[in-house]
């Protein structure tokens, strides 16, 4: 009973601290706002399901990023999809008049143009994670992360400059 309460407390703390991060990443993979909500709900559900078996072999931060990316990437594959979860208690509220500066939209558009695996790398880089942690989340070597980030960054900057010039 006490252990269950601990898990509940840990869960609430975890999603409160990470909900913006999770939402940001899901928005990169979502096709539209409805899809974004479904992804966020699915991430929360998977965190809740997996939390009791969290073994602290990695930091909880790394663990949340892994779940978020895995859920978001999995959603692309029709044959891996389960029936959609429907949790009314989780909502995404959009401000009625969201100021959208072109540079932010351009960034999202350029990220969306990247290959799926490159997208996961750049998102973690933009979240200011050290290469070591990115390597742990993705399951690749730290050196390889550095090489790939350099290449993807160049690609992203090219895209942003091209959009600026257009």
């Amino acid at each position, binding site marked *: 009973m006490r252990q269950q309460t601990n898990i509940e407390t840990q869960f609430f703390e975890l999603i409160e601290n990470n909900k913006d991060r999770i939402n940001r990443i899901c928005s990169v993979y979502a096709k539209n706002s409805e899809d974004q909500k479904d992804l966020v709900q699915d991430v929360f559900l998977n965190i*809740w399901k997996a939390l009791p078996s969290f073994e602290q072999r990695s930091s909880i931060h790394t663990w949340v990023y892994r779940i978020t990316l*895995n859920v978001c990437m999995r959603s692309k594959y029709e044959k891996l999809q389960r029936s959609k979860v429907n949790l*009314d208690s989780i*909502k995404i509220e959009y401000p009625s008049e969201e100021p959208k500066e072109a540079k932010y939209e351009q960034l999202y558009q350029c990220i969306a143009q990247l290959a799926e695996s*490159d997208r996961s790398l750049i998102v973690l880089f933009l979240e200011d994670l050290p290469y070591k942690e990115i390597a742990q989340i993705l399951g690749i070597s730290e050196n390889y992360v550095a090489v790939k980030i350099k290449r993807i960054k160049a690609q992203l900057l090219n895209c942003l400059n091209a959009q600026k010039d257009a």
Partner: protein
Amino acid sequence: MLDKDLKNLWNNAPQKGNVQFDKQKILNEMNTEIQKIDRSIRNRNLRETFAALLVILMFGWSFFTTDVLISKIGMGAVVLGAAFIIYKLYAVRKSRQPVDVSTDVKTQLVASRDYLKKEQNLLQNVLYWYILPLAAPILFIGIVNGSPLLFKVIYSLFVIGLSFFVYWLNQKAAKGFDPNIAQLEEAIEKL
């Protein structure tokens, strides 16, 4: 643009909506959702087993009531075929472990690809574990019984036709896995 500028741009971008959750309801809802998913898997497993058990009961009954030895052999073979299908489905379910969503992304992609390949393989091999164990003895029973030749021909054509149809449906479903497997291969390779 420097790394810092790029990260600032990302971090200062207006939030794509604010996530709100109802602390009172969320746990109940999630537990219900998990139960719903478990229940749907359990029901599917039950349906599969029930269909095979029905065949076992029907042909098992005929096995004990028929006096003709050759028909008895056929009925027994159908029962064994249906039992084999139950075993096969059970073994598949056991190996169908859900992919651990908290592993690293590359491991997850590889596990997802392997999972899809396994499912595809099951559909591709449906002839050996589903169609032949059932259709062959059913066909045998129809041929060896004392019915008129015309009945035997129509019966055989029906069983063979149905088997082809089931085979075709499964091969079509198996092909449906190809695009996802190819996309996963590509993602693994590029990561």
